[in-house]
């Protein structure tokens, strides 16, 4: 760290050369801050790694190979990232409506368990894949939408703050699915043939086609979730619904004045937001797991918050942020295996990335990056801005 401070001038000079190149050749100016934030975070992580007596370059080399060291690693990293896209979109979409949906964790579970239930229905195996696959995805999406919609309804009808209600609903659904999947008396969703508490396996016909036989499996769900990002971008920027969501998020009073039904937008945004988490869960159930186990989505919702914030709630940038996040988690095991550095370090690096991207003033100072535009992280108060 101190090296960075002292060499600020040098870094600044070098950085401006890099800027010119990036700027003129690739027009990547908006990315500077993010790139430097990542760099800085790895430096901080490297210091920690050195403290425990490991050569940071060895560790990072292993991490890098774990992330992108070969076709299998790349596919695995991408596959690990796919569900994060959904959980991050869940936060990002609600955020546009001025709602803080920290319930993706629960919406994933609700979507996953619904998808697994529908996927394992006996008549699913009679359906062709072209019907069964959309059906299981829709089921999961609906599950997520309903679980996301509840806090929306509570917010609209009773004013209950969505931060409380989503925290409570996260726990409720977790206990609910644990019971459903574990209980033998009565049997709710448990696969009674398994000693592991999980649901019955879904029908073969409902399994999403595999793209690469990596660990975890990279499946067609990738296209669904990446596609959804572009759909959401279009939805938010080009449709009347997106306009309503954005208006409610920026100024609910003006929305009310302009004839927008604010309550309906709140409920719809929460439901749509939950549906993304539900879709992500369904695609995991269908493409990777083949059954539902309550622990599968552990922390995916909370990581989604960080990813969405890292991407500044921009739906397309979420793809990149999720890839970064997922591949770091995916690469961490190799770092531990080869360098004996635990995943905690990756967690610290991730927090740092988010920190430096958010507090871009630090990065701008260190690397002499000009302020391009108002950072979306700077909360603007409506009154203050006018």
């Amino acid at each position, binding site marked *: 760290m101190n090296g960075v401070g002292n060499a600020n001038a040098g870094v600044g000079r070098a950085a401006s050369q890099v800027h010119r190149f990036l700027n003129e050749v690739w027009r990547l100016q908006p990315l500077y801050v993010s790139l430097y934030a990542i760099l800085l975070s790895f430096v901080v992580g490297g210091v920690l790694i050195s403290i425990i007596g490991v050569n940071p370059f060895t560790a990072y080399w292993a991490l890098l190979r774990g992330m992108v060291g070969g076709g299998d690693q790349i596919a695995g990293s991408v596959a690990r990232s796919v569900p994060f896209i959904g959980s991050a979109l869940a936060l990002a979409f609600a955020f546009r409506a001025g709602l803080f949906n920290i319930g993706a964790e629960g919406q994933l579970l609700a979507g996953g368990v619904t998808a697994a239930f529908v996927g394992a229905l006996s008549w699913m195996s009679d359906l062709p894949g072209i019907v069964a696959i959309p059906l299981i995805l829709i089921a999961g999406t609906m599950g997520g939408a309903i679980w996301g919609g509840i806090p929306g309804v509570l917010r609209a009808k009773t004013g209950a703050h969505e931060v409380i209600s989503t925290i409570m609903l996260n726990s409720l659904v977790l206990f609910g699915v644990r019971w459903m999947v574990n209980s033998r008396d009565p049997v709710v969703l448990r696969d009674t043939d398994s000693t592991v508490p999980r649901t019955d396996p879904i029908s073969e016909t409902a399994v999403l086609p595999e793209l690469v036989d990596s660990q975890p499996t990279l499946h067609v769900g990738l296209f669904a979730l990446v596609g959804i990002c572009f759909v959401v971008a279009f939805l938010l920027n080009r449709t009347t619904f997106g306009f309503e969501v954005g208006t409610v998020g920026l100024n609910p009073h003006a929305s*009310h004045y302009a*004839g927008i039904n604010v309550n309906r937008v709140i409920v719809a945004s929460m439901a749509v937001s939950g549906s993304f988490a539900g879709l992500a869960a369904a695609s995991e159930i269908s493409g990777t797991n083949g059954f539902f186990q309550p622990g599968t989505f552990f922390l995916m919702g909370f990581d989604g918050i960080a990813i969405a914030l890292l991407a500044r709630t921009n739906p397309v940038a979420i793809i990149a942020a999720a890839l970064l996040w997922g591949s770091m988690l995916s690469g961490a095991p190799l770092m531990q295996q080869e360098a004996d550095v635990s995943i905690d370090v990756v967690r610290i690096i991730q927090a740092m990335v988010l920190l430096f991207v958010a507090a871009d003033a630090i990065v701008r100072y260190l690397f002499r990056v000009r302020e391009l535009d108002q950072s979306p992280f700077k909360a603007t108060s409506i009154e203050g*801005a006018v």
Partner: protein
Amino acid sequence: MAQVGNGTARPVLEVEGITKTFPGVVANDNVSLTLNQGEIHCLLGENGAGKSTLMNMVFGLYRPDSGTIRVRGEEVHFEDSGEAIARGIGMVHQHFQLIPVFSVAENIILGNEITKGAFLDLDTARRQVDALADRYGLAVDPDAIVGDLSVGEQQRVELVKALFRDADILILDEPTAVLTPGEVDDFFEVVESLTGQDKSIIFITHKLREVLAVADRITVLRAGQVVGTTTAETATQQSLANLMVGRDVVFRVEKAEPDPGKSVIRVEDLRVTDDRGVETVSGFDVEVRAGEIFGIAGVEGNGQRELVETICGMRPAIGGRVEMLGQDTTGWSPRKIHELGVAHVPENRSKHGVVAQYSIADNLVLNRYNHRKFSQRGVRNTAAINAEAKELVERFDVRTPGVEAAIHTLSGGNQQKVIVARELTGDLRALVVAQPTRGLDVGSIEFIHRKIIELRDQGVAVLLVSAELDEILSLSDRIGVLYRGRLAGTVEATEATREELGLLMATGAQS
């Protein structure tokens, strides 16, 4: 202290060569000003002329780029308003700087708390507040919650706040904007009595009549520069107005005789509660006909906001009915009412009128984004929106670099023009307009007034709510006074006098 009469040339505050720039704007350009002991010095200028900026520097809220400020001959460089307060400067801001959830006493002592040991001593504070109130004739209840007070009472709290801090240089920023004519007179008495007790006062306003009534000396600011200093004896309304605006100003709004048609807006026995559940409109009746402007005068806080919001569908009524174009629209959504051909220029520009972060184009279609013209099958037609926006920007003379600029980059007047442009376009049958020119410069005011009259001449029923009595008087065909949620009386504009309206506003009773 010796009694010092008006005009004694002993300066207590000298401002010399002050310049202050904000990004893109020179707010004050080499401004100089002297305040003498015991005088009332009026600072006159249009909105945006730089009056408040200058005073915020004197009060330590802003720091000047260059120039000096001297208090009683001593040069000062305030880091914050605490230092200004310590020098005996007090300021009553145009937008009251009060904390609504606090009691009066808490608001008054905040920052200069009275303590007993480590704890707040609210008893002593109450006694001191009462004493101040008695001494200056400013009745306030120390235990009342400020959010529950009327604006007039809130202003008294602001004054007591300054006096509590032993201020002897008082800066009053547009203090009369929220008062009835009668209250204004009372207020002037208070101000006079303050100068009698050794206080020196800077009085910021853009109302010429008041300047002439109260000022000893007058300094006129225009576009950040001092364009003249004069005394009340030598100045006339016309001369001051010309100085202030920089050209000849026509006071009267030209308009033809009204030609009222059939009833368009009819409100019967309307009852509405405010956000806290207090009934603020209680049994209001009015009828506005096509082709007339019905002005509603009244002190703010008498139910204007709730009335307008209910008529336009933004707030549910708890009783009575609203009828528009022969249909019972009580309980309709804002959208349904809008689609009936009812436009609404909202009172609170930043809260309701615009979405600050949106572009001018998006704000221009804020309540029409779903019309076929601007969206097809749920997809917005950006080209059509921008084309419409360009046309409106031109027609309404909005000064902007482009329609895609965020609206918060515009001045208040131009933002209001955007709202007016949005609302006054299309097939209108009725227009509900609240405080349409608040905070605007003379040019914008004239423009908006013209537009409203144009609409009325086209046969639109206009309900105008304004706290500016001059605006009501010059635009309206008929005038109603809103007092405690009821219509206290209706007069024909041609027969209305300031005095009569003032009395109605203050007491709800006709003389």
